[in-house]
């Protein structure tokens, strides 16, 4: 029994955190939002060197959640859950080396959870996935997202590529990675808010000395603390109800963190001048991607009744 990351996994997360801290995600994300995915692509290639993009080829789901949490912690642009968690189980053998190296990015359309392909206009490949099989798809009309560095493409399914691939497992891994990103984003929002509350003064004292602020951030801490074990347990069992529980809990904890972070920062948090906006807009988007909280609650009720 061990429901916390190993020493190796913690070192892996720390290395990824260091890479992402040095990478200037604000600039990379702004370029991605403007349609220049070059700097982001170089980052994804660095993920390849570190072994992040190959985790579902030669690692386990527990490694995946450790890495995906860190990607959410830094609000990394790109279809993380699609390309890193699910695509390796859905794409052909011939693509695996390129996927593992972070040289290609794959997006997915999986109705009804993912009716549109995230970053479908810049992805190297879009897979249209149903129980009947996997098809290559072409991007159609592209829509801007609430999150500036995301664009969603309508898709036109084309030729049948494969049947019999482990679609169910791939989708559970995608949900799991999305939940992990949300947990990481929630943690980043809490860390930033605590730091701001310690330094911003009003009424002659740091605002973090006021109970209204303390209690709100304490509630966020509780939500994140009790979401993480659900995520790690789901990575072990991959059972439907566990994966869904992780997605709901991580998503709602992250939403709580986002609301608290904006409130603690006040008007400065409502600007694009502060980096906070990347997390504030990512959280409500991922919370409703890879299945809404309502859909996951229904899945849990189906399983546990």
């Amino acid at each position, binding site marked *: 029994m061990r429901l916390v990351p190993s020493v190796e996994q913690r070192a892996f997360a720390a290395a990824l955190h260091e890479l992402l801290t040095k990478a200037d995600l604000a600039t990379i994300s702004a370029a991605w939002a403007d349609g220049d995915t070059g700097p982001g692509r170089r980052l994804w290639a660095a993920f390849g060197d570190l072994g992040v993009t190959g985790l579902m080829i030669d690692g386990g789901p527990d490694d995946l959640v450790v890495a995906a949490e860190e990607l959410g912690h830094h609000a990394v642009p790109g279809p993380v859950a699609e390309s890193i968690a699910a695509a390796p189980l859905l794409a052909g053998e011939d693509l695996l080396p390129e996927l593992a190296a972070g040289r290609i990015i794959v997006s997915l359309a999986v109705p*009804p*959870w*993912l*009716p*549109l392909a995230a970053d479908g206009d810049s992805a190297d490949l879009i897979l249209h996935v149903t129980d009947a099989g996997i098809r290559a798809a072409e991007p159609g009309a592209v*829509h*801007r*997202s*609430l*999150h*500036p560095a*995301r664009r*969603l493409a309508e898709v036109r399914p084309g030729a049948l590529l494969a049947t019999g691939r482990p679609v169910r497992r791939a989708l559970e891994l995608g949900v799991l990675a999305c939940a992990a990103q949300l947990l990481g984003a929630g943690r980043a929002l809490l860390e930033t808010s605590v730091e701001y509350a310690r330094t911003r*003064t*009003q*009424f002659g004292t740091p*605002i973090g000395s*006021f109970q*209204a*602020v303390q209690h709100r951030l304490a509630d966020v801490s509780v939500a994140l603390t009790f979401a993480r074990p659900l995520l790690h347990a789901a990575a072990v069992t991959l059972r439907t109800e566990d994966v869904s529980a992780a997605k709901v809990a991580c998503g709602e904890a992250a939403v709580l963190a986002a*609301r608290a972070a*904006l*409130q603690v920062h*006040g*008007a400065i*948090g*409502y*600007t*694009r*001048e502060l980096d906070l*906006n990347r997390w*504030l*807009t990512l959280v*409500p*988007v991922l919370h*409703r*991607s890879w299945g*809404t*909280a*309502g*859909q996951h609650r229904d899945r849990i009720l189906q399983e546990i009744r």
Partner: protein
Amino acid sequence: MNLDLDPAAVAFRDEVREWLAAQAFTEGRDWERRLAEAGLAAVAWPVAYGGRAAPPLHALLFDEEYHAAGAPARIGRNGISLLAPTLLTHGTPEQCARILPPMARGDEVWAQAWSEPSAGSDLAAIRSRATRTGGGWLLSGQKTWSSRAVVADRAFGLFRSGPEQRHRGLTYLMFGLRDPGVTVRPIRQLDGTTGFAEIFLDDVFVPDADVIGSPGDGWRVAMSTAGHERGLSLRGPGRFTAAAGRLIELGQTRQVADSWIAARAYRMQAYASLDEPVAPSATKLFWSALDVTLHETALDLLGPLAEIDPDWTAGYLFALAGPIYAGTDEIQRSILAQRELGLPR
């Protein structure tokens, strides 16, 4: 008790409804001018200033019809909802006659200049100064989070005019945003637009005629504006009842019913407050939470397609600002607990 509208109110509501239905909506100053020409820019104002001297009920009905019709956001809102009630209470007849008619026509657009980098929730920490000079005042300092300052002509705000600390020694003044010594720096908001700005003031001259109330009495005057900002003057029930109505089209869930209940509560409280006003802080706390809940419910119902829905995502981002502006919800809770409930400070 009854919910019946008298014949004059029915006639007014029908007039507004029919007029709005006949309009091709435009934006900005042009739209304000058309509202003014129809006598609808500010129905509760005295006739001499561009209003109809209509009872407060009519202002509520106008707000409901306006949002139900999906009419445009008003560029004149800061002036009409915040400065005008202050002038009508604390201003001179000369100030009202000079300032209100061009405000109603959209010829003069106003911005609020209250917050400063170190005076947000703690508004009494204002440092920007008004210094006595011949025939008026010189303003210096920095204001921030000034909504519509990028497009507005003039602004109103609080300045420190005496040696006293905190709430004392403040004066309420109006100044031109294109006057010599004024620099406006736009700030990009969460949605990418430059809805608000910083204002830098370097010895900006303001004549005595543009002081509202007495010099040194600015805090009292400002708190009357704050009451309008937190209360019904800024956020009538129309925005919420209209949004609740659109929610029903997205789905029928418990959340939708709860949103409908809350929007209905806000509307009924608005009617009740015509006879018995409630604390502006209570009103602000209710509408700021309601607005977020309504929009989060919509996003939940839209699911994975929520993030690309331009109207609901724009409304969501707007709603997220509600618990921050007009005095944060934390400040409102303290005011309510201490002044209304009588809890110790």
